């Protein structure tokens, strides 16, 4: 077990190291930030001063060495545009993204489980067929397109909900969030729904499949024979068994939500990490791009590592298989 964890940990470190090489060299070899940052009428001395201030005149290997040395101390360089540490900028934008991703997970459960339950209990009902057809659309429609439709419907035509920004922030237990004010919640709803659509479809399908499988099982028949009410059978006995795959899959999907929020944040002008990344790409703000990519890689590697270790604890066959290779 310990050997398995150590090996996985070493692999994870190797992946992060390789990604840092790819990302750093990729970003630094292509594109010339000097042209972007110095105004066209600046003289040679200004250009030289900027290059020296940003360390762009050093050999690329030395730049990478300085980058890695800084990265290990939590310093990923300063943003060219804002002049602030890139890591600080990303951490400042992280709560907004987390808030969006967590809310959309909650929405996925709130919408997905009841709809999936209904579709699984009454598979022949036309409403169930409608739910399933819509869930297929949820998989194949591009996220940004659905976001546009939500804006047209709720913000432009009906005028019910705002479509840009984060709204008023409330403070609760020292945390600032849109969740604590009505205005903030109304700003949060559309982007969170947009981000949740894929997962709502996923939860509907998982729940439906789970219910249909569980209803034929002996323990359900036994509970019926015991004279339990249908509600108790569904919400206590069946539900417990369905929640296992749903929770597992949603946990795995959390990383994807952070990644997909890039799209949603851009559409709804939500001031999170994703919008920061797109703005940084468009303005060639290399340190921010590099810092974002490193953080997201780290995030995914940690999620995968935790899932791998949890699986190997739950299912020893995974460990043996790995050993056999």
């Amino acid at each position, binding site marked *: 077990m310990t050997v398995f964890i150590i090996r996985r940990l070493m692999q994870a470190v190797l*992946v992060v190291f390789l990604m840092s090489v790819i990302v750093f060299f990729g970003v630094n070899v292509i594109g010339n930030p000097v042209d972007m940052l110095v105004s066209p009428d600046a003289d040679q001395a200004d250009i030289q001063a900027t290059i020296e201030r940003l360390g762009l005149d050093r050999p690329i290997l030395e730049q990478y060495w300085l980058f890695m040395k800084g990265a290990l101390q939590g310093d990923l360089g300063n943003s060219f545009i804002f002049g602030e540490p890139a890591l600080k900028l990303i951490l400042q934008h992280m709560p907004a993204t987390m808030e969006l991703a967590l809310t959309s997970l909650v929405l996925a459960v709130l919408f997905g489980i009841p709809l999936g339950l209904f579709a699984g209990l009454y598979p022949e009902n036309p409403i169930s067929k409608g739910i399933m057809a819509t869930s297929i659309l949820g998989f194949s429609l591009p996220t940004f397109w659905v976001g546009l439709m939500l804006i*047209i419907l709720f913000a432009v035509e009906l005028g019910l909900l705002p479509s840009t920004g984060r709204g008023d922030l409330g403070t609760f237990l020292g945390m600032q969030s849109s969740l604590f004010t009505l205005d903030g919640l109304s700003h949060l709803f559309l982007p969170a729904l947009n981000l949740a659509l894929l997962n709502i479809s996923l939860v509907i399908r998982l729940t439906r499949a789970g219910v249909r499988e569980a209803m034929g099982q002996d323990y359900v028949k036994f509970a019926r024979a015991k004279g339990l009410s249908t509600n108790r059978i569904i919400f206590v006995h069946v539900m417990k068994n369905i929640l296992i795959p749903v929770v597992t899959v949603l946990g795995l999907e959390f990383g994807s939500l952070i*990644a997909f929020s890039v799209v949603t944040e851009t559409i709804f002008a939500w001031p999170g990490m994703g919008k920061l990344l797109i703005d940084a790409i468009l303005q060639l703000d290399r340190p921010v791009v590099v810092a974002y990519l490193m953080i997201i890689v780290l995030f995914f590697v940690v999620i995968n590592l935790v899932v791998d270790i949890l699986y190997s604890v739950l299912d020893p066959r995974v460990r043996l298989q790995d050993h056999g290779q």
Partner: protein
Amino acid sequence: MTDVTTEAPAAVAPVRVETPFQRFASEFFESKIATLALFTLIAIIVLAVLAPWITPQNPYDLAQVDVMDGRLPPGEEAFAGYTMWLGSDGAGRDLFSAILYGLRISLSVGVTSGIIALAIGMAVGLLAAYTGGRTEAVIMRVVDLQLSFPATLVALMLVAILGKGIENIILALVVAQWAYYARTVRGTALVERRKEYVEAAACLGLSNMRIIFRHILPNCLAPLIVVGTVQTASAISLEATLSFLGVGLPQTEPSLGVLIANGFEYMLSGRYWISVFPGLALLFTVVSINLVGDQLRDVLNPRLKK
């Protein structure tokens, strides 16, 4: 005894001799939705290919575009006399024409990246399956690693590194997709490799190359076709997403995603058509490819056959 011999031909007689393709086609057309999707897809492809000959204007020829026609709602008549059934965009381009031209770009980027990714994934997958051992372990480790990141994120990372431009987008889409093909091919090839016909071919003294490409590969085609359709749809949608975010194709290559992005700024003022119609074209394309892919999977998968 006599009963048996007289009955047997009678039972055989009504069975028509079908070629495999006819059987495949009749099974495919059993589903009405898939049939509809296939015809929609064919119509979309024909419209896109014929765009220069059937659109009322070339939206990127400045001589044919009139700024006075800008932001006309659907059904208005253009200055040049024809009706703009889908309205016009901010620069006065007829949206119907712009959409057909956009479809050409979207489809060709999606299909090109799909074919390149398929070729690379196929080669790598076959190599892994046929060599086995350490090579296979390393290749599959890389494939698994990449598949643990969502394709959108992989493409976004590459675009962040490479920058805009049609070659960079195709490259990003290829890198985001090859692993899906590699995994599929390797999985099927491993099963095929252990079958007797491969052993027989090896006994005949055929070269490895010949066994891989003439004997194993044709038997891996069915799942590859299914993955290929689904991946092409997701490539088209991914390109549209990147272009919409402004990190995909440049304005000089106006795919559907670029058109939708251009219309976005007009949307809050109620001029919905500039974004909505290119979006619908994208939607019909992606959904019909997916439906065709679903049906192909059902028809080509022998396990699901009755």
